[in-house]
């Protein structure tokens, strides 16, 4: 469990603000889903791995005798897909974004149980353009946050699934293998020898090679002409997306094995890395809405992980230091307190940040200090903390406002 202290919150709000501004400028609309959802929402799609579902916080609701359980939201995308299916499915297109916390426990209780995400989801529309749109949007947010040396890795869930099919495993074995891959254990795939050496060659090549442009994928396509139709169509999809990214000047690395936790994805998957940590990820999940009994609406989206990004952001300068004004009462008499409140109100009305103080502590980090002594004819003393010299002002509030506004 983690407290977010004032400095953390400055970073947190900055991420959130930049994210919101970017999303709005791409015409996404903000939504918020409840913290408590029904457990069956997350089991219904059959997409989350058992190990992920075994880590949800679940409990009985007021009508617990029905056996129905509620959970603390363990995932950001599924509730938004539900929100879309329940409320907005009449819309041909829906561009939605959210800032939310998700919950998961692990066995030791040492890790954080609550994590924050900034996510955006694109429901409807054709393929290709939305895939590229969400990647570019995510990239723009990261760029505007000023995080440098960010790597974008691409994979494709359709390709992985097509490869798995080629292994011709029993349904039980295939499910187990899928779980392993979802948990990031790609060695399992190389160890599973298929009857077809061509497939082994394909798997080995894909896991080994890392591409930097769509040309790589064209090479793969040319080297494995006998690959299945599913594989080819997924490859074609990835070629189209990467070609577009190439043309738009977006650099990336194709690394099939880089990605895990792509539970519900069906098409492109991507993740952003900075300083060795995953700071965001997303992909296409065309089956999620239909699995929730919605229409066959294709969808894709991404989430940026606020917690690792917070660590990467430089600490913002204390804003107070630039513009804050301390209104200090010299004594704690009712007249002085009243005057202080009046002065502070006038300052706030004029758009300044005004803090009241009656303690006599040593103040620091303010732009101005207004000392209220209550003595006539000059009840105020204004100090310019940057220039460090006191300036005596007459009884007029207007004068103070004029001076602080002029800086």
């Amino acid at each position: 469990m983690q407290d977010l202290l004032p400095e953390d919150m400055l970073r947190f709000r900055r991420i959130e603000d930049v994210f919101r501004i970017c999303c709005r400028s791409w015409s996404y609309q903000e939504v918020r889903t409840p913290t408590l959802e029904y457990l069956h929402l997350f089991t219904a799609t059959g997409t989350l791995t058992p190990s992920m579902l075994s880590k949800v916080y679940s409990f009985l609701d007021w009508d617990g005798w029905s056996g129905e359980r509620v959970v603390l939201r363990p995932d950001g995308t599924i509730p938004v897909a539900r929100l879309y299916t329940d409320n907005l499915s009449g819309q041909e297109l829906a561009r939605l974004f959210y800032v939310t916390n998700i919950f998961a426990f692990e066995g030791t209780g040492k890790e954080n149980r609550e994590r924050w995400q900034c996510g955006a989801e694109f429901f409807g529309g054709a393929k290709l353009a939305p895939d590229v749109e969400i990647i570019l949007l995510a990239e723009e947010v990261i760029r505007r946050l000023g995080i440098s040396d960010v790597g974008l890795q691409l994979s494709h869930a359709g390709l992985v699934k097509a490869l798995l099919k080629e292994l011709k495993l029993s349904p039980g074995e295939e499910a187990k293998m899928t779980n392993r891959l979802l948990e990031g254990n790609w060695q399992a795939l190389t160890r599973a020898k298929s009857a077809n050496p061509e497939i082994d060659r394909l798997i080995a090549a894909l896991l080994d090679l890392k591409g930097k442009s769509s040309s790589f994928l064209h090479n793969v396509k040319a080297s494995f002409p006998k690959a299945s139709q599913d594989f080819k169509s997924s490859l074609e999809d990835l070629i189209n997306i990467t070609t577009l990214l190439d043309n738009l000047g977006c650099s990336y690395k194709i690394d099939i094995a880089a990605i895990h936790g792509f539970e519900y994805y069906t098409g492109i998957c991507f993740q952003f890395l900075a300083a060795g940590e995953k700071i965001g990820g997303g992909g296409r999940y065309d089956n999620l809405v239909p699995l929730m009994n919605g229409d066959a609406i294709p969808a894709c989206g991404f989430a940026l992980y606020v917690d690792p990004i917070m660590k990467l952001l430089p600490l913002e300068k204390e804003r107070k230091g630039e513009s804050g004004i301390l209104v200090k009462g010299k004594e704690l008499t009712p007249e002085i307190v009243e005057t202080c409140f009046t002065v502070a109100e006038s300052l706030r009305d004029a758009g300044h940040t005004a803090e009241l103080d009656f303690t006599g502590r040593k103040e620091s980090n303010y732009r101005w200090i207004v000392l209220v002594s209550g003595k006539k004819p000059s009840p105020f003393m204004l100090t310019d903390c940057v220039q460090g010299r006191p300036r005596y002002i007459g009884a007029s509030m207007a004068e103070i406002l004029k001076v602080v506004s002029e800086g």
Partner: protein
Amino acid sequence: MKDYQDGYIKLALPKGRFISPTASLLAEIDLGFRDYSDKTKQYRLRSTRFPRLSAKMLQEKDISIQVAVGNYDLGICGLDWIEELLVKYPAGALVKISSLNYGEGSIHVVASAEAGITSLNELSDGRNDYRIVSEYPNLAEAFALNLRMRRFRIFPVWGAAEVYPPENADLAVLWGKSGADIATQGLIPLKRLLPVTAFLIANRESLESKDLSQILTCFSSKITTGPQTSIENELDISEELKVSRPLWQAKEINLALPDGHQQPPTAQFLKRAGLALQGYSEEMVSRRPSADLDWLGIKVIRPQDMPLQVANSNFDLAITGEDWLREHLYRFPSSPVKKLFALGFGAVKIVAAVSQEMPVADIDELRSLVQSSPDVIGAPLKVASEYIDIADRYLRDNHINPYKLIPTWGASEAFLPEDADMLIDNVQTGKTLEQHKLKIIDVLFRSSACLIANKGSLASSDKKEKMKFLTQKLRAGLK
């Protein structure tokens, strides 16, 4: 509380099914617990061979938890209760040392022959909402998740899981001697989850920091190095089974009757009321007795499970205790269960009790003691109870703070004074408490058997008449 300096070692030994093989084992390896048998009346045992070794007899369900919590260094209990804990809390403080090579049967996932479920694939493909009943809710949940079942609800029960399918559950996770044994109950074993063998378990911290070697050496001749069974092992379900199908048909009104020590007085009561039943006498209790009313379906289940099972409309009426009704209503205040009338038998008091040595006479003094000298008791106050919600409310209402609840499966007196400071439990005479050097400091309420009903069934136009008929008939049994 753990004390590494004195080197005392605490061992938790099982009551119930494993007593006799465990007693033989202990005799064989000579741990010096001569009084450990099903006849013994005491919970605490001292080793005659190792002066620093003591043992306590506990319910198996409690042993895995108590060892994990660190109240015991070592324990012996069935793999089922170990896995029930580990499947939910895998990185916890419980370590399996070794199988002790005795035990019987396995935990199976079963379906009713009537439900038409014959393979596991049907469960993960379908969009049905499966009701799973089990004494092992965590194992049941892990099973459902691993199978990626789309929609399921788990109903934890205190026992008698086998009687729920098909009307009241689609699947059950339960113990069975063998697939064939399960088939005789009209159930199809779909999957064997794990074999029920006795295990020696240890608390991780004790194992890491305390010298248990003398005791472990004694066990070493019995410790096997073979592959340890884990829940992952998939076992065949392909045995040829002849599933006997009990005659079954949906009934208009369903009544739940209690098993256990509530059964004889309930049977007498029903006799007085003139309700003739077959299979609910002292000689023979069937899980599905039959009545001379063709519209009445009857099942025999645990009284603890009845309020919830009436609330979810599995039963229209049930004979249970007021204590269990209250426990349910504290948890779910808007539950559609209603008490119709008390039946005048099975009277108990629900009491709060502490060790006779604790210098308090009532709950107010206990509160003062907790507040004024937390170190005397060791804050938080540990309270053992099988009535979690009743105990919770009682402690809140009495401003006892801080406290910690230790859920038990009956016989809470075994926990005091070492593992709990106070118990909230039912007593008939109070003699048991006295034998264990405990004293009652408060009576929470009195409880006796009562007839409860589902409010929806009472109001339903289809059921109203028959519900009225039956309740009037039962009322006639009141003395």
